[in-house]
């Protein structure tokens, strides 16, 4: 027993001494994942798509510019506090990007990243005001902020039934993510003549929304807009079908319209709509490379039927943007081993136009994203898709956000954000 204990202690000690940081020649592009916890069903697909794209680059091109990438995962369980711990654990390891996969985590590391010289990329989530590159040099939310997305959804509703005199219920997950677009509703309601009611769903009540849908049934809104995530989405659609709410008047944002949300419901969810900024399917050369080089040889945790679905493809697009920023940074500095500060410049220089998207073998997967020093949102547009009982398919053309509404709101919000933060570092753009 004693010997066992001593040998255990010794092996523990040797383990400790091997933990030391390894400075191999690699591009560290960590992402915060949640393969455990209440949001695991969605989080797993998101984590796989991001990892697989980088693994594919390693297999096909030997990394980016000849340096292998390392898409390391840090497990958060979608908890903001654990996310901060993840962030802290990367200090001193020269990560090239902070990729939090959660708005709650984003809000908490937003102030730290500039000090550590690492850019934050929040693909389709995060703080809306981060679109203002002059105020937030280190944060990016390509391809569109939540506020832009909300205005696109509202324009879609306007084009369908008109908004004047209508009542809209906003069903949202009661965390930083779900609360983010409320100012847009407050602002646009009086202007466009619609009435809105808030229906918050706490994380604990996510899978038990009968009381929320009772409220909705009583109030009879003309449309329901949802900002949901994880098990909340499928529960909401199920409850909507149960209360006989017309599903084609129920629109989710782009995190509320994935295969995991509707597949189990099948025909019951038919007609449900959601926003999106990425296409589905596997008919893209780069996705084919991912299948042939990574998924089929068993080099990733992805199963074949997951590839090509909404969240997997969207996560891959996130990885495309990171890879492209590193590529731009390498081009601009002439160095192979770039730093976080270089990648920040790369993100601002990003020019994923139709020609470049075709070159990457991704034509049709997403709309062009063009960044600049002042614009960290990239002028993205939102498409509305609908579930036909078996698969998601687009039902609208790309709908641009109401720039005239969102622009001034973003400017004001950015100014408010830094108002009580003396010493905040902005940048000048010309």
């Amino acid at each position, binding site marked *: 027993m004693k010997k066992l204990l001593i040998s255990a202690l010794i092996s523990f000690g040797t383990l*400790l001494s091997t933990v030391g940081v390894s400075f191999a020649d690699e591009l560290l592009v960590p992402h915060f994942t949640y393969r455990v916890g209440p949001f695991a069903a969605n989080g797993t697909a998101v984590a796989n798509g991001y990892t697989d794209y980088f693994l594919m680059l390693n297999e096909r091109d030997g990394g980016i510019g000849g340096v292998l990438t390392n898409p390391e995962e840090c497990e958060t369980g979608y908890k*903001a506090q654990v996310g*901060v711990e993840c962030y802290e654990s990367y200090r001193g390891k020269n990560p090239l990007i902070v990729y939090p996969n959660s708005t*709650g985590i984003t809000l908490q590391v937003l102030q730290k990243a500039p000090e550590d010289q690492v850019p934050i990329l929040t693909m389709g989530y995060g703080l809306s005001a981060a679109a203002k590159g002059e105020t937030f040099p280190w944060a990016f939310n390509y391809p569109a902020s939540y506020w832009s997305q909300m205005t696109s959804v509202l324009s879609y509703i306007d084009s369908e039934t008109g908004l004047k005199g209508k009542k809209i219920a906003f069903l949202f997950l009661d965390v930083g993510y779900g609360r983010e677009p409320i100012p847009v509703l407050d602002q646009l309601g009086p202007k466009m003549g619609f009435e809105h009611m808030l229906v918050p769903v706490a994380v604990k009540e996510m899978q038990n929304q009968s009381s929320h849908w009772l409220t909705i049934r009583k109030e009879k809104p003309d449309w329901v807009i949802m900002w949901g995530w994880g098990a909340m989405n499928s529960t909401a659609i199920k409850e909507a079908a149960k209360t006989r709410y017309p599903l084609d008047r129920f629109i989710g944002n782009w995190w509320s319209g994935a295969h995991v949300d509707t597949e189990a419901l099948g025909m019951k969810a038919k007609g449900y709509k959601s926003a999106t900024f990425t296409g589905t399917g596997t008919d893209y050369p780069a996705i084919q490379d991912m299948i042939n080089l990574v998924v089929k040889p068993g080099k990733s945790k992805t199963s074949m039927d997951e590839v090509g679905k909404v969240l997997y493809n969207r996560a891959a697009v996130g990885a495309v943007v990171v890879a492209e920023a590193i590529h731009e940074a390498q081009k601009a500095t002439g160095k192979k081993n770039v730093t976080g500060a270089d990648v920040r410049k790369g993100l601002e220089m990003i020019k994923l136009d139709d020609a470049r998207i075709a070159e990457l073998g991704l034509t049709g997967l997403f709309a062009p994203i063009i960044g600049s020093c002042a614009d960290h949102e990239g002028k993205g547009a939102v498409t509305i898709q609908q579930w036909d009982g078996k698969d998601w398919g687009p039902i609208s053309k790309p709908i641009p956000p109401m720039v005239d509404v969102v622009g001034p709101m973003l400017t004001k919000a950015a100014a408010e954000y830094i108002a009580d933060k003396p010493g905040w570092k902005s940048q000048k753009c010309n």
Partner: protein
Amino acid sequence: MFYRETGQFKSKYKEELAAFPLFEDKIGVGILLLLAYVAIPIFGIPGLSYEFTLSAIMIPVVIFTITTLGLNILLGFAGQISLGTGAFMGVGAYSCYKFMTIFPDLNILICVILSGLVTAFVGMLFGLPSLRIKGFYLMVATLAAQFFLEWAFIRIPWLYNYNNSGGIEGPNKEMFGIIISGPQSDATTRYLVCLTFLVLLTWLASNVIRGRIGRSWMMIRDMDIAAELIGVRPLTAKLSAFAFSSFYVGISGALMVFFWLGAAEVESFDINHSFTYLFMVIIGGLGSITGCYMGAILVWVIPVLIKEIGKTSFGYDAFVMENLSIILLGFMIVVILIVEPHGLARLWQIAKQKLRMWPFPY
């Protein structure tokens, strides 16, 4: 051989009742202080990266030790069970945030202490039912505190200054020209501030516990009717225990947000965290100050190390290690409770007893 009291004579009652009656104990504590104050801030822990050591291990351990001290005073010394620790930390954090934003020029350390006082008041308020109810029923009452406070942190936007995000975050705060809190502050500075709080609070706790108030708490814990008969007033004893304990918990909450995380949402103060602090107290040992340190270290550091070692040395996936560390922690709690129900502090005491007689036990 090296650790025994032979030859150390005490000629005054004061010496007999000192915190560390043995000369060897004084040396031990001195070495520990030297390690914590000098060695770790300069060298870190060998084998681990410096930044990781301070921000992922040392700072949280120091802060959670303060929390555990607070809960142990209530649970271990006064015998009043509480499940609202997480929420009381929230009271500390939110009130510190309010003090900082209402009085931007006020020194942050004063804000932290003030927030401890606010929490002491709130704790006393929720401690009132303890005068009528005991045991499991009191636990349910503190559970109500937990849920009510969590609700308040979401539904009273004044508490977080009407932020859209619903969270609180700390601006940069200076003292003597050094930034001690906020995103620009150095981990070493923040660690030293937290450590100083811990040392002072430990000193305070050990003296209060050995004094009149502490003994009245223990009398209430052991048998409240007997205590009442000898003249201990349950009202003051119980409420002072709640106030004192909440003061500690509130300070640790404020430190957690403004000296470790930098920002927080209500989720950092939920019931799961209350349970974690309870585990720390139980594993460390009820009614022992050394136990608070041991419990906090064990419950916090082991999962962090397991995750880090699994990831960097074996290349396991992050989520596998996450699940594994949860399983191991649960397993460890069960084993420790079976092997030594009085916690690690009791094991330490046994070890000390054996050492005193080594190598000639009779």
